[in-house]
Structures are given as structure tokens and as C-alpha cells.
């Protein structure tokens, strides 16, 4: 039986990442949103505003948990205290699945709070697959890993990224969190064919899709989650949906976070493309030609990029 069916992963529709600047408006207006994704680490504290906001959101919306600190490919086993807190959060939120990244976050005791790429090797596959399978058992919910954007490659890599990703999810029997923007960013940065990546991952294991904007610099693209999803990424998304069928899709917007209405309009834009992909899959529509790549508008990177945007913190209080 395909993975998603065997573990009961639902299609939640099109959601958005829950971000601090929108909390108040969401709680007051209760807009129609299919689901929210939260950054797990921002809600692992015992109480206070984060837990209060979490409880209010849970009253009205389905919520998915997405982590950024697991470091599943790091030299040491994932931190036990972190896992206990994550499981406690999972029990509270009851998400349909939990995800993190194909990455490592530090070594030698340091946690660098970044999604560092792994070399695509058998050693990395063994390490990540073993831990991912254990983690899925421990959390008692379907677990998925996300392909990251990367800015370097290793000479040791003997596999393509899609071969690596596919092998891990198959061996660990976990889900794939497929970030289409990350495919685009890494394809540009490393000069591979994004469509080949999209077409060669196990589509029946895709439990969720991420879409986001990015920042084009002179020599590379950064996955800043800033701005609208570009047309070329939406083309890849349509193809992903055509191949995978209906999959929960999420807009991430973490830098220069717009008003809630603009964010929700972006989710509707994604929904339109999703429907096109589903129509193509059902043979009810001819494939839509891909956009011709437009000359890149170069930007200046001025600050840190941070998954999940700003965390809610004491610094916001007087």
C-alpha cells in the first residue's frame, strides 16, 4: 500500500505558515485558511504567549508541525531533551504529520541554527534513514523530511540530491516534504535540471509541498522566503501536483512579511495552480506551457534569512 494511504496522511488543501505579525488578526478575524504550519521550536516553551496563541489557533484550525533544529544528519544522535519536548508538543497539537529537514545543524557540540547540506553518500543515507525511522516510531505520527536549499556541494557526493532524498524516504519508510522553491534554488545554484528533480522523487510519498519566494543575488539565489512565488516555481509545482495528485500545500513567507490579506491571496494563487495540475492529471486539461524564464531581478541581501520568520520573544515586550 502506498505510504500516504498506509499511514493515513490527508490532503489538507492550501495553508500558510503561522507567523507572529498575523497572530492578532487571525484570532480576531478567524479567516478561512485550510491549515497552518507552525515552526515546532517556537512552541516548545512551557507557557506564556506562544502557548496561549497555539491553544487559540488549535481551537479553529488544523495545524502541522515543521521543525528546523532536529539535525538529523549531524554527527551525534538527535538531542534527547529536544525529542521529548517535540513529542509533548505533538501530543498537544495532534498534527497529521511532523516534518524537519534533510540537513545537519552543527558538530562538536555546537548548534549553528542553520540547515546545512549533507553530502549525498551512502554514509549519509544510512545515518539519516536509521534516525528518521526511529523518530517516526518515537513520535507516533507520520514523519517527513524536506529537501533544503543549498549553497554548496561536496566533492564526496556520489549521488544526485533526488537520488539521495528518494533513497532515504524509501529506506526509512517516511514521507517527503517537497519544497518546490528549494528545488528551483538549488537547481540554479548548482546547475542541475529542476524538472528532473521533480520527476524523479517518489511522488506517492509527498505528504506536503512548500512554496515560497526567494532572493536572487548576482551569483546565487538565497531561500529567503521573501516575496511572491515566482512563475517558474509555480510551473514546477503544477508538474509536481500532476505527478503526485492532491497534496497539502503551504506558502512560507518569512522575510518582509506582508499583510495577512496578501499572504492569503498568495495561497489562492497556489490553489489555482494546484487545480490546474489536478485537471492535467485527470486528463481534463492540456498541459500549460512553462513560463519562459525572465531575466533575474537582482537584489541585495542585507540580513539573515531565518526559517519561520521572527520568533515571538521577550524583546517585543517593554
Amino acid at each position, binding site marked *: 500500500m502506498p505510504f500516504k494511504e498506509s499511514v493515513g496522511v490527508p490532503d489538507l488543501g492550501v495553508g500558510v505558515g503561522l507567523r507572529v505579525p498575523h497572530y492578532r488578526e487571525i484570532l480576531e478575524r478567524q479567516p478561512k485558511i485550510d491549515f497552518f504550519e507552525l515552526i515546532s521550536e517556537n512552541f516548545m516553551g512551557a507557557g506564556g504567549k*506562544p502557548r496561549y496563541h497555539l491553544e487559540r489557533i488549535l481551537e479553529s484550525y488544523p495545524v502541522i508541525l515543521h521543525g528546523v533544529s532536529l539535525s538529523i544528519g549531524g554527527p551525534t544522535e538527535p538531542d534527547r531533551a529536544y525529542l521529548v519536548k517535540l513529542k509533548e508538543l505533538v501530543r498537544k497539537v495532534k498534527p497529521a504529520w511532523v516534518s524537519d529537514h534533510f540537513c545537519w545543524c552543527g558538530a562538536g557540540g555546537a548548534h549553528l*541554527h542553520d540547515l546545512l547540506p549533507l553530502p549525498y553518500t551512502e554514509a549519509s543515507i544510512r545515518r539519516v534513514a536509521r534516525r528518521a525511522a526511529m523518530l517516526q516510531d518515537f513520535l507516533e505520527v507520520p514523519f517527513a523530511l524536506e529537501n533544503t536549499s543549498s549553497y*554548496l556541494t561536496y566533492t564526496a557526493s556520489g549521488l544526485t540530491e533526488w537520488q539521495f532524498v528518494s533513497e532515504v524516504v524509501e529506506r526509512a519508510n517516511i514521507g517527503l516534504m517537497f519544497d518546490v522553491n528549494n528545488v528551483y534554488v538549488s537547481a540554479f545554484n*548548482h546547475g542541475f535540471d529542476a524538472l528532473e528533480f521533480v520527476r524523479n522523487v517518489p511522488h506517492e510519498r509527498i505528504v506536503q509541498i512548500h512554496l515560497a519566494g526567494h532572493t536572487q543575488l548576482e551569483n546565487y539565489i538565497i531561500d529567503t522566503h521573501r516575496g511572491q512565488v515566482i512563475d517558474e516555481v509555480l510551473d514546477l509545482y503544477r508538474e509536481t501536483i500532476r505527478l503526485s495528485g492532491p497534496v497539502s500545500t503551504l506558502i512560507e513567507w518569512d522575510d518582509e512579511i506582508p499583510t495577512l490579506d496578501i499572504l492569503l491571496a498568495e495561497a489562492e494563487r497556489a490553489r489555482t495552480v494546484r487545480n490546474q495540475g489536478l485537471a492535467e492529471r485527470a486528463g481534463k486539461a492540456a498541459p500549460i506551457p512553462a513560463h519562459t524564464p525572465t531575466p533575474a531581478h537582482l537584489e541585495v541581501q542585507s540580513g*539573515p534569512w531565518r526559517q519561520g520568520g521572527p520568533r515571538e520573544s521577550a524583546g517585543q*515586550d*517593554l
Partner: protein
Amino acid sequence: MTTDLLDQELTELQLWMSALLRRRTSLEKDPLTTREAAAKIGQNPRLSPVEQVEIYREQFWLRHSGSLLEDFPGLSGILGQEDWDQLIQGYLEAVVPTSYTLRDLGEQLPNFIESCGWLPHQALCRDMARLEWAYTDLFDAPDCGELDANKLAGIPPEAWSEAQLVMNPALKLLQVEYPVAALRRNLREAGEDESVPIPEPQPEQLVLYRGTDRGLYYRNVSRGAFALLSAANAGFSVVAAAEQAISEVPEEPIFASLGAWFREWGTLQWIIDVKI
């Protein structure tokens, strides 16, 4: 699959890179790193191997210094850009971030400031860092129930000699040499070009707490009240805590103040229960 790494080699690669990302200066100026990177990092038509690693190194510094700036707005306000940058660079070099969350990044900053003799207004900075770390800790401290007035009224008078106050977990007691809580507020409220005067020393006993609206607040209390709260927080019975406070601050009418203090502390939810 071609040349594969052993698990140990994968670990060594990660240790190498992890150390590079915490370096303070650009990697591109270091010939050894450039050579090592050429062996370990892939070729790219637009970026050299060392330039690829440098992207992550720059982000390490931007991300971590940005996070500390969010959590220590008062401290950065006292220091100004240049001294703040020097302090934070020294801190991030000396103290390895080990927690999974950036929320914990500033935990050692108050202690680190003790070692920074070059820092202008060092004692004031230390007090401000202690205050701001305490706020970070209070921000997501456990929630708790309210003090039950009926339970309180039902406690027989003779039981009070052994009774212990249960304090709110979202409360901290902080003795400072400078009026840093008010200074922090002034710094946060000041306009960008508005200068805030550095205050003279003025010892204060601060109770930092999370209000019922989950906002963070402070109160400056008398030395006697602070001594009593400290003893109660340490697990002394009410009577023992009062005796301790009287011995520490004999000039204050502590017994006469107890009723008013307990009423206020109950209302503010500093006290959440009484254990008999």
C-alpha cells in the same frame, strides 16, 4: 555510488565545516582554508569552493547577532553599535551555541560581561543583561493557576506557622545596582536620534513577572519585601521567611506590612498557592 565516505569521515567533514562557520573573519583570506575547501567542496562556475562555505559563515554571524539584538535591546541601546558589535562578536567566539533554540543564545551573556573589562559602563551592562535574560526566561515560563481565595480563608490560624507560599513560576527576583528596568523602557521608547542619559547607580530590588495578559512587567519593592519573597521562593515557611526578612532588614516594619503585601502579591499572582 562512487567514492563513499565512512561515517567517521562524514563526521570529520562536519566538524571541519562547523569550526569554519564560527570563524569571525572571512574564510576567503585564509590560504589553508581555501586549499582545504577546494578538496572538500564541489566546483561551481559562479562560486569558488571557499566562497560557497563563506555564504554559510556570514549567515551564522548575521543570524546569531540578530537574535541577540532582539533579546537584548536595552544592552545594545546602552552600548551603541560599535561596542555592541565587539561584545557580541567576542561572546559568539567564546560561547559555543549548543541549544536547539536561539531563545537560549543569550543565557551566558551576563557572565561573559563580567570578563569584559574594556566595556564602558560594565556594571550597568551586566545588570541590564541579567534583566533581559530574566525577561527571556519568564517569557515562556510555565503557566499556572490562580490563588484560591476560599482555600486561603479556610486555612486555620495555627497552620500558618508551617505554611509555605507557592510562588508563580513566571516570577524572578533580581537585585541590581542600577535602575535598569526603567532605563530599558526609556531606551525602547526613545526615538532613533534621541539620546537616553546613562543613570547613576541606584540599587533596586526588582520583581519581574508575567502578568495575567502574558506581558512582562517589573516592580521595585522594598528590601524587606524582597528578602521575604526571596526566602519564600527558597522554600522557607511563611513564618521562617518573615523572620529571615526581619533579620536582614531590621529597620523595616515587616510584620506590620505582611497583610498588605500578601493581598497585593495574591492579586498580582506572584503567590499562586499556600502549602500546609
